[in-house]
């Protein structure tokens, strides 16, 4: 039994199955992406009890009983300040890594509401973007911080 995006979901899988694949292949939550499978790219980032976690490294057994939030559950209507900032800055290019970026940024801002450039770079460097959207990611994190503080 998993708590995902505020609802309880039941899955029948091997306990060592990474949460990533349970989300994608069993629960139909494909917003969380596979990029490397070895904790190098961050595309699979979700929130576990509000903190950023790599779902490719997290067994479903360890995720049980925790509050899991995926990109689909960040907001129902794109109203989360990070999503709003991402739209305002038109951050995505191909878009593939962006759910990982957004989940990482949202977790950063929940712990550090006004991060500086260095803090943003440090946190966001966990998520690889081969399109190279890093400049706008940084701008968007600043924007989200500003908007959330209003």
């Amino acid at each position, binding site marked *: 039994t998993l708590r995902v995006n505020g609802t309880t979901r039941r899955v029948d899988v091997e306990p060592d199955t990474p949460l990533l694949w349970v989300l994608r292949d069993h629960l139909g939550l*494909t917003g969380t992406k596979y*990029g490397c*499978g070895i904790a190098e790219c961050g595309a699979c980032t979700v929130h576990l009890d509000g903190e950023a976690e790599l779902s490719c490294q997290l067994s479903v057994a360890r995720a049980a009983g925790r509050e899991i939030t995926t*990109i689909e559950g960040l907001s129902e209507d*794109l109203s989360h300040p990070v*999503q709003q900032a991402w739209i305002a800055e*038109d951050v995505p290019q191909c878009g*593939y890594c962006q759910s990982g970026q957004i989940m990482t940024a949202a977790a950063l801002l929940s712990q550090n509401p006004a991060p500086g450039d260095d803090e943003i770079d440090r946190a966001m460097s966990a998520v690889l*973007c081969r*399109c190279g959207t890093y400049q706008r990611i940084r701008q968007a994190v600043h924007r989200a911080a500003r908007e959330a503080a209003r």
Partner: protein
Amino acid sequence: MSAITKVDRREFLKLGAVAGGGLILGVYLPEARPTTHAAGPFQPNAFIRIDSDGAVTIWVGRVEMGQGVRTALPMIVAEELDADWASVRVVQADAHPTKYGRQGTYGSTSVRGGAWLPLRTAGASAREMLLAAAAARWDVGVSDCRTESGRVVHDGSGRELSYAELADEAAEQPVPEDPHLKDPSEFRLIGTRPSLVDTPLHVSGRSTFGIDVRVPDMLHATVVHCPAFGGSVERFDAAAARGVSGVLDVVEISGGVAVVAQSTWAAFQGAEALDITWSRSGFSMSSAEIAADLERLTESEGAIARDDGDAQTALAQATRRIEATYEAPYLAHATMEPMNCTADVRPDRCEVWAPTQNPQGTQAATARITGLPVESVTVHVTYLGCGWGRRSSTDFVQDAVETSMKVGKPVQVVWTREEDMQHDFYRPTACHRLEGAVDTRGRASALRLRIACTPISVRGGGGSGVDRNSVNGAADMAYDIPNLFVDYCRPDIAVPTGYWRSVGASQNTFIVESFIDELAHLAGRDPVEFRLEMLGHRPRLRHVLELAAEESGWGTPVTAGRARGAALVENKGGLVAQVAEVSLEDSRVRVHRVTCGADCGQIIHPGIAEAQMTGSIVCGLTAALYGEITIAAGRVRQGNFDDYR
């Protein structure tokens, strides 16, 4: 959309009323716009639909991989149509051999390669038909009416009608012979920055990439390919793989061995448990051997790619000359979304969902593999998690189609990152030997460049003479050097190579520009002035270089420990100059700032253009500072983002 029967005048076709009313226009999108069309069946390939509910739907035949076509191409139509941008809906077209023109999305061709005028003409034609419909309804002259943001307005009487109200009547109007196109000074949408149409989907996790396709009864699979290039399956033992929970089947396909399972994870686990014996491929080279092979080739003459003046004599007579050898490694595309494809092959038809840069090639390949006629193959194009040329190949499509044929069910094949890294079509490897000289006045007087570069094998290999891609960005360099000689030597290496973002210009620009800098240094000249002097005949190139230099503070003192360098490129219609401010920290290059001047002609959406430039700077730096695929015993050594970036 299939009931297209009639050609209306030049290249336009009116399809009349659609279900629920409205206007549809098809427009022929030739690659190079001919002035007249040969007789023959008309194949419209861009579509606009104006529904009586006011929605303007624009079909996009090209594919979206972050470069912004799904926003930029509709903007072109909407501009001339004077549509209300908020009412525009974008539909991704399925593959069709002819309907949407060339759908292959590579080579920077979507806007540049033909869409610009035809899409404008399509929008302008629809606009004039709407104008005519309104004028007829009001019984006034067309010239007394104007359009504005989805409405026709008659200023004399203050009346106005929305396109929605006019769509049915507009469909009855004749298609204009020669619709009026706006002067660029009249553009209201082109050149602005509307929010990209795909952004809301991407930030909500609802955009469907190839890997996100979910089809009823779909099985998940992965494929293990022969690690060494050219090898194939000799035999395999699937017992352990079949023992993995969730694994349903193990089948051999032409690309290797496919493990079919209830989930991707189970398929990955099953693939790890496979015991495969591969045939010896015969290819067992290492990177060092490949590099030596290329360097040896540059010792003898190649096919001549450029021969201005007499470089041989000029170099022999020069007093100040330098030589250099540059090598460029293989690079992987390493798209964030690994190769994948979903196929549902039935006896009489096949449906494919593919993150492909090559919809028509995907359709043709599927028809060939299945033996089905092309019209029985439907190819849906998904979002692409990066492309850069990798997804112009159809090898991953073949994996999915063959696997679905073997198991008789819809199958999604997803490659592991390691398979993706080790079975790419790599940016070719190259060895350049350069000799250059400067004259007494400090100008470049001669340059000789010999290029040994593996040709792109995805084209089929073979060939002789100059490989165009290998010399692109070198033989066509813009600099006016009186004695310039470029020749090309053709290696034959079994590592698969393909199109990698900007193709030959990726390594050739780096090498030529680096060597030009060495020449400037030899001459004791400022490297920007040195370049400008050789660009007297190229004002636009001079301008981007001057712009980048000025904006970067070129010529002003630089922070202690840092240095500036400039480079210039002209490729696929784009003119770009950059100044990088860098320092060395423990022999590692640290890039502090890059200033970019770019001239790519008419810009549709400045935000997209900026994103392409900032992204390509990151991409170029990654390639220059980190990217390297190495080969040992005929196979790629790197496997994931821990050893490749």
